[in-house]
Each structure stands twice: as C-alpha cells, then as structure tokens.
C-alpha cells in the first residue's frame, strides 16, 4: 500500500517534470544580476559589472602568461629551466598596481554605500517583521498591518500538482508600495534572524530580533517584484518569499483606503513584542 503510493507519487513527479519541460513551464533562466528597478539597484549592478570586468582583465593577463608558459616552457619541448628567483622591482610593481586598481574600485563603491545608507526624507515608512515563516508588514503612519505568507499549494511542492509560473515566489498579500516615492523600510524579527530581500531593489537587510534595521528604496517602474528570505531561519526558510507590488501613487491611496476599511482584526493581536525597548541608538518611530 505504502509502496504503491510512493511509486504512484514517483510516477506523478516524473510525469509532471517531463510535462514541465515540454510545455515550457520552466521559467527562463538568468545568468547575471538583475539591473533592477531603482537607481540604487542600477548603481549596484554597474559596480558589480565594473569589478567583474576588472577581474576578467586581470584573469586574462595572469592566465594568459601562465598558459603561454605551460605551452612553451615544458620539458618535452626541450625547455631548459632558468634559475632566476627574485626581482625586487617586479615585486614592487605588482604590489603597487593592484593597490591602484583597488582604490579605483573603492571610490565608486564608497559613493554607492553612502547613498544606500541615507534613508532621510522618506515619504512612507513600512516595518517588516520576520516570523517563522512569514512576513508581517506594518505601514506605521497609516495604521495598516497584515501578514504575507507563501501561497504556493503544498501539492506543487510535493510534486503531486504541476508547478505554477511563480512557484515559491508567490504570496497571499504582497507588500504594496507607490512608485516614485522614497519608502523607508525597517526590518526586525519576532523569533530568529531572517533577511528581507528583493533582487530588483538592489539589497537585502537582515531582520533581527531586538534590532530595527533601516533601509530605503524608491521604485521607478510599476510592477511585481519577487524575492525571498535570505537568512537561514529554520525548516521553512525556503518557503517565505517576498513579493512587492509597486503601483501608481493614486492606486496606492485607493489600496490604503480599502485596507483601512477592511480593518483586519487578526493582525492587531499579532503585534510583535514591545518595540520601544528594542530600538537601538535611541531611534524613535
């Protein structure tokens, strides 16, 4: 009985995998970091590409010399070993040039980092609280609060139903934000450490119990952006996605009105532990 059930499951899994292949349910793969939809995410992408190309150039140089040597300086080609074993000049040169390259990388990196750290003048503040295993979003000044939980059915995870397009990257209630506005995001957690990450926004920030971390974003393009918890947080760490829906400011206002009207009673009692005791550096909310 049990065995036949396993066998049956196996057949279904295999079948659905093949079906997935043939119908192209397997989403398009990506090779590189997304450029994202904020000015910060584009800066981060540029930085990433800059360093990447520098590494490629150095790699071509170093490995080029090495392969040339491997080809020409082999005993089977009659190479006779030279006996030199140091050169102060060369050694100084190849210490100084890398230093210069590093400084060239550090300058733009510092600029981006400073911009990312500046969360002043935000127009909207949302507190994100990580739980095992879902997110809670609090719009602090609007009094709107709700949980956001994975909505992929268990059957898809257990391979008894075919997987949807946004398998594991879909939630019941996405975070809704207005485009073109600077949104401050405060992360914290109620149990263990989580990390809130949407690649298209260009960063992740740990959500740590007892701490409130600050970050910000300003999304340029309306759309739905998907990410995941990035810090191991226990059994269902792989099953707590982040979905952000960026809408026009008007649409956002409408959504807020609707949310307030719904006045969700269940979220009120699920507030995390008193925050005032846990705010670092006397930051007030």
């Amino acid at each position: 009985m049990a065995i036949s059930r396993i066998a049956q499951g196996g057949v279904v899994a295999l079948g659905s995998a093949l079906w997935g292949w043939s119908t192209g349910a397997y989403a398009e793969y990506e090779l590189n970091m997304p450029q994202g939809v904020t000015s910060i995410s584009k800066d981060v992408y540029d930085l990433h590409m800059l360093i990447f190309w520098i590494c490629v150039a150095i790699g071509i140089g170093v490995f080029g010399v090495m392969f040339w040597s491997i080809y020409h300086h082999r005993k089977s080609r009659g190479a006779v070993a030279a006996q030199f074993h140091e050169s102060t000049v060369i050694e100084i040169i190849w210490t100084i040039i890398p230093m210069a390259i590093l400084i060239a990388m550090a300058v733009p990196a510092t600029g981006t980092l400073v911009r990312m750290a500046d969360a002043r003048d935000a127009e909207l503040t949302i507190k994100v609280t990580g739980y095992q295993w879902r997110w809670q979003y609090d719009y602090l000044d609007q009094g709107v609060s709700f949980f956001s939980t994975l909505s992929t059915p268990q059957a898809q995870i257990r391979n008894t139903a075919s997987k949807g397009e946004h398998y594991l990257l879909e939630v019941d209630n996405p975070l809704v934000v207005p485009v073109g506005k600077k949104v401050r995001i405060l992360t914290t957690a109620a149990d263990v450490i989580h990390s809130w990450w949407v690649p298209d926004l260009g960063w992740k920030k740990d959500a740590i119990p007892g701490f409130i971390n600050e970050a910000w974003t300003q999304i340029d393009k309306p759309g739905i952006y998907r990410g995941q918890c990035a810090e191991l947080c226990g059994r269902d760490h792989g099953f707590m996605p982040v979905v952000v829906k960026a809408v026009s400011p008007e649409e956002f206002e409408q959504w807020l009105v609707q949310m307030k009207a719904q006045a969700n009673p269940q979220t009120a009692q699920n507030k995390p532990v008193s925050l005032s005791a846990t705010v670092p550096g006397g930051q007030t909310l």
Partner: protein
Amino acid sequence: MSTAAPTHEHGHDHEHHGPAPGLSRWILTTNHKDIGTLYLLFSLLMFFIGGAMALVIRAELFQPGLQIVDPHFFNQMTTMHALVMIFGAVMPAFVGLANWLIPIMIGAPDMALPRMNNWSFWIMPFAFTLLLSTLFTAGGGPAGGWTLYPPLVLQTGEAFPFVILAVHMMGASSIMGAINIVATILNLRAPTMTLMKMPLFVWTWLITAFLLVAVMPVLAGAVTMLLTDKYFGTSFFNAAGGGDPVMFQHIFWFFGHPEVYIMILPAFGVISMIIPTFARKPLFGYASMVYATASIAFLSFIVWAHHMFTVGMPLAGELFFMYATMLIAVPTGVKVFNWVSTMWRGSMTFETPMLFAIAFVILFTIGGFSGLMLAIAPADFQYHDTYFVVAHFHYVLVPGAVFSIMAAAYYWLPKWTGHMYNEKLGQWHFWLSVVGINVLFFPQHFLGLAGMPRRIPDYALQFTEFNMISTVGAFIFGISQLLFAYNVIQTIRGGAKATDQVWEGAKGLEWTLSSPPPYHTFQTAPRVD
C-alpha cells in the same frame, strides 16, 4: 640543500626500535609518521562522509519540488556537511601533512610534544562519532548552519549539548596540534636550518598554527555562551534578556575568517613546494611569499565583519571592513604572481601533483576574484547569502584547499610508502575532478546572481537548469574520488619502487631520506646549506 651523513649514528646501536606490533602501534603511537598517517586516513574517511552528505543535498536540488528529504533533514545535511568537511576533512588533512612533513623537512627527530600529539589525534574520532551520532537524536542533528547563529541554533533539540561538546573537542585537538607545531618548528630545527631557509610549507604552517592558537579559544568561548544561554538562563545573545544576537556573529567571525585562512595557508605552502619541483626552477620570491603569508594572517584578524555587511552596521564600520577586505587581495595577488613566475621559463612536466597544483592556481584565483567582488559592500548586499557565496567559498576550498591536499598526497605518497602511485589513474582522477568541480560550482555563480538564496531545499523554476547541471557535476566529482581512494590504497599496499629522490626536480631534506623513510629519522641533525 644537502645533508652531511650522520657519522656516529650507527656506531652504537641504541634503542632503535621499530613500530609496536598490531593495533597498539596505532593506539599508543607517539611517532610523527604514524600519527600523520592516522590523521590523513581519518580525514579521507571524513571526506567521504561529508561528501555523501553533499550528494544528498545535490540530489534534492536536482529538480524543483521536494523529492528526497524533508526540509529539516536538508538543513541538518548542510550543517553537518560543512562541519565535517571543515573540521573533519580539511583541517585534519593539513595537520596530518604537518606531522609527516615538518620534522623531515626541518631535520627534527619527531614532533616536540609526541604524547600530546597522540592525544590530539585520538580526540578526533570521538569528537566526530559524537557529532555524527546527533543525527539520530530526537529532533535530529544541528540544522542551523555551520555558523551556529542564535537564536536559530538554540532551537536545536537534544543534539545541542553534544554538538557543543564535539566542537570543544575538535577545538582542543586543533589547539594542541597547533602548539605542537609551533614548538617543533621553533625548537627542533636542525641548527643550520635558519628561519629563512625553511621550506614554505613549514613557514605557512608556523603562521597557521599561530592563527589556530589565537582563534580556536574564541570559538570555544562563543559556543560556551550558546550553551549557557540555552541551559543556564544567561542572555548573552538573547535580545529579550538584554543580550545581542549580532554579538555572536562578531565573535563567530572573529574566529571564522582566520579559520578560512587556516584552511588555505598550508595549501599555499604545499603549492609553493610542488610548482618549483615540476618547473625545475627555484620558487620565485621566497621572501615575499613569507611576508605575504604573514600579511594575510594579520589582515585576517581585521576583516571579519565582511560576513556581516547586511546585519546593519554603521556606515563607518561597513567602510572599514570593506577596505580592509579589499586589501587582502594584494598579498594574495603577490602569491599568484610568484607561482606564475616560478613556472615562467621553467622546464615543466605535468605529473599528477603538478596538474593539481596548476588547477589550484587557476581555480583558487577564480575564487579570489569572487572574493574581491564580495568584498565590495554595496554589491555584497546582493550577493550575500546566495549561491554566489556558495560558489566563492567552494572555489577556494575545493579546487583550493582540497586540490592542494590531493596534490600533496600524490607528491609525497611515494616518499611515505616507498611505492609509486599509478600515474595513469592519477591523471584520470585529476581530469574527472577538474571537470566535475567546474560543472558543479561554476553554474552556482549564475544561480546566486539570478537570485537563488543559499541553504534552501527547494527553489523557483528559473533556477532549474543550473541546479541540474550542478548536480550532475557533483556526482561526477564525488564518484571520481573513489579513484583517489583506490589509488592511495593500492600505493600503500605495493607498486613500483620509488627512488629516494622520487621527482627529478625535488629539493629539500625529506628527499634525502630513503623511500619509505626509516621509522625514526634525523636523530642527528642534518646540515643544510
């Protein structure tokens, strides 16, 4: 270097005893060669156990959906795989190499503290039996990652105190091993073996041993605080009790970053021995190699928070750790340039140890490049905790540390056993490993950049292709290691007789001994010039 024949040794045949018979030889031994052998065989066993766990992980990740294991067990596998590979495979392998080689490289009769040497080894099998047995306790083994971050790690079940005890035991073993190495190198060198004549393997181990003595106690402190937080009502890391979970990460990485260098500095040493031999040319920049190693060791103490860019440090902290981390690229670069210059205008041959050494230089450098990318804090906000990091550290640890260990095994096995290994099989092992490892880890860069977090048992559909490729690579790599084990065992049992010199270009005291060397060597100090 050459040795003057010891003159009086055979005059009075004092208590020249060989090994004790049977099992007691191995249990009671204080001989550095026996203990070296024990360490190396133990590490090979752990390599296969840790490898089997890795294959469980990769098998589950072959396709999206949960097929083989439950997520909780998956997390136990990732945690245990790392602990077993780091503390059970890579570190003991290097200690084994140190035991076998340091005395015969510096002209010492044995390690300075031979009884402690026996003890440091024999703690290990108990520590790992304890650690592995926790997989069978209620609630399973540790599943919070090898980094043991609280509060998550405090959710471990009955396994918790046993894991902490096992970590303490491994730590004690490492500290004793390190003290022994420092004492041996500083006190037992042949009088003519000055510090700046020491082979690089000895230098890198000297520096590594200082790192070990400095940071293993820090790990011990950190895990003890976890223990008291869980069982004795302290709140070191518990925010609700006034503690600080991020403090654990600072303490852990103050240990953890030097730890990664503990796993790579001896590898640098090995590679610096092998490349000159097969290039038939002296190592380029010996002195700068020593200084580069020392600078890397120093810098490794001030970069730890590059593992924590996303925890929300102040801007000044992020900048400091970013700049300091980038600096490590300089001495690391010096090393790579020196290896390439050593090959330059040499007269190279490509026996198995050289092949592994060349692959090391290339693939470790690729890992260094991704390290440099990770050092850029704003970019790390994207890379952190993704498969990009997994690709980075596997490039530096597998074709880095592990390849260097394999290169060392092939290089010195003829010396140790007196038999040549099977070269053809060695070449097969190399090519399968090098192909397997790249198929396994290169696509993980893409996965991370495309947004796949690490430590997840199931993933979104756009990650399918590269995960499948990676799993295929894992099985190629994993299975080809059986060739290595087979080759090693066959070489121990017999094979073509090795000469004393073994390799045409080999230089150094160990090659002046017979192959295999007698049970006791250099009871009279050799002369080095």
